[in-house]
């Protein structure tokens, strides 16, 4: 164990360095490029006693920075969510986007924008993420309920994917309807929900997503050993002292919360959660302690790179980020489906 452990530490350290590098790149490049010294001056303007930041500096501080940080956090959330789902279902082909969690969360958020104004709720900072969580819980619950076999109460992966497909379609069409009747500009933008974008990033969003990502990842890490035991089967995990039902509830809840809160601010971003754990398993094996920490970093890196592509490829306009993640993720998904190694 000593040898793989050491190389996993090296890997995680390397990923941390890369995360910081892509964060720097993400702040530096965009519709307008900023030099390092400009970034330094903008940060310095925050110090007490300095002159007010100029327009460029304000773009950097109020748009670019929160966007870059939010992107890291959302990527981390989706990566961890994918790892948790795959560990829980003992199958490398599931991810939050495929089993309905993300579309349900997007639906909850869209509902909030449409009904919030009418019902005069939504003054609190937390209303939007809570609405997203409720949507995520409803869609996840619906998928598991419908995918369960009548015979033995277990959900097969084929059923899970097919039901996920149906529930996704249902919630996306519901979102389409809401966009059609909505007055709120954010809810009106169907591309925002279905393809995902980080263009609405704000420091407020960063605050909330930081909390859900950090707390969710910390809880997941606490249960990494039990998730490892689950790799050899539910029965075997029970024999190793794991309360499997309790573990399932905790992990599912963590997953729904981190994915739903991220989705509330960015829309549905698919395939990050699918691809990230695979890359990590190829690099350093399947130990969940390493996978959870690593998928937070790798998710952050990949989504930031995707966001850079989204922003730079058609500058000064930008692509919805979901187009980029799907372009990379779909081939990987098909490749995984075609591989015989995985039993459905």
């Amino acid at each position, binding site marked *: 164990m000593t040898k793989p452990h050491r190389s996993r530490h090296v890997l995680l350290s390397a990923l941390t360095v890369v995360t910081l590098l892509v964060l720097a790149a993400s702040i530096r490049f965009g519709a307008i490029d900023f030099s390092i010294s400009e970034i330094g001056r903008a940060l310095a303007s925050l110090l007490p006693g300095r002159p007010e930041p100029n327009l460029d500096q304000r773009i950097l501080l109020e748009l670019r920075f929160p966007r870059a940080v939010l992107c890291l956090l959302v990527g981390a959330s989706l990566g961890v969510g994918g790892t948790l789902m795959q560990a829980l279902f*003992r199958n490398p082909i599931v991810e939050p986007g495929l089993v309905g969690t993300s579309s349900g969360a997007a639906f909850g958020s869209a509902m909030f924008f449409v009904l919030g104004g009418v019902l005069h709720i939504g003054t609190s900072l937390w209303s939007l993420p809570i609405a997203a969580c409720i949507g995520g819980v409803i869609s996840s619950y619906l998928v598991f309920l419908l995918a369960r076999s009548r015979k033995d109460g277990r959900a097969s992966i084929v059923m899970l994917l097919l039901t996920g497909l149906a529930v996704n379609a249902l919630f996306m069409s519901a979102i389409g309807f809401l966009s059609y009747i909505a007055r709120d500009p954010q809810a009106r933008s169907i591309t925002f929900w279905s393809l995902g974008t980080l263009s609405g990033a704000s420091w407020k969003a960063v605050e909330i997503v930081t909390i859900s990502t950090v707390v969710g990842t910390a809880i997941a890490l606490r249960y990494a050993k039990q998730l490892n035991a689950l*790799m050899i089967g539910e029965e075997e995990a029970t*024999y190793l*002292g794991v309360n499997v039902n309790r573990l399932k509830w905790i992990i599912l809840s963590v997953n729904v919360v981190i994915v739903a809160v991220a989705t509330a601010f960015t829309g549905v971003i698919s395939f990050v959660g699918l691809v990230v754990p695979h890359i990590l*398993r190829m690099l350093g094996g399947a130990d969940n302690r390493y996978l959870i920490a690593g998928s937070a970093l790798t998710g952050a890196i990949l989504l930031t790179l995707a966001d850079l592509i989204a922003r730079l490829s058609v500058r000064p306009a930008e692509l919805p980020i979901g187009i980029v993640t799907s372009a990379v993720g779909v081939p990987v998904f098909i490749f995984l489906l075609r591989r015989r190694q995985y039993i459905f």
Partner: protein
Amino acid sequence: MLLANNISFRVGNKSLLSEISVTFAPGKLHLIVGPNGAGKSTLIKVLARLLRPETGSVEYEGVDVAQVSEAELAKRRAVLSQAVDVAFPLSVRELVMMGRYPHFGGRPGPADEQIVDEVMAHFDVTEFSSRDYQTLSGGERQRVNFARVLTQLWRDGSSAACRYLFLDEPLTFLDIRHQIDFLKKIGTFAAASDVVTVGVVHDLNLAARFADHIVLLHEARVVAHGTPTEVLTSERIQDVFGVTPTFVESDSGMHLVFGVG
């Protein structure tokens, strides 16, 4: 000492276990035999507390297992299943280390590492150490899982509580040489370490040769239990399995040969 105290278990209105009372002593190899559907695997699962009996109780050292927490139980009760599948690439050593999971909190300590090394050497699986478990053959996998299960029960000096080992059809994917080899090792382990050992096997010859104590199940009930010669009589085998045995004496002991009808 393991005590099954008048246990019954049913699914729907089908009775899988009916009023079963047996005592299992430490240091002995107990093998449960019986035809398909007799309730052998269910009995193992109830004894190992994966399933709760509908009536009656299972007692470990006089304590009802229903009262013991899962985490506490895992320190002294281990189960070897028919086959263990892993969906992800996992090194053999990582899998064997899982046997120590109930014994450490966050990360394995030096004592856990040492026990894993010891057990893996003892069961000749050290050569597989860094292999991916998914690439092993059925027989190799079973040896590795056997090592895992014994790692779980290995004495680390912290507790003197009685330990329990259950084997749910452990021979299914083994060839005859490995079946014999496996039963020998189990018998030696049970005798040497004072562990209560209860297993399910199908082969009556292997059961007769290696068991200290046989429990014969038929239609959810214990038909007989005792030493192999006490339990495996011609009439009982005929009644329970519907085959006619002939007893043949050879250099390696008594053997059963079966005729149908």
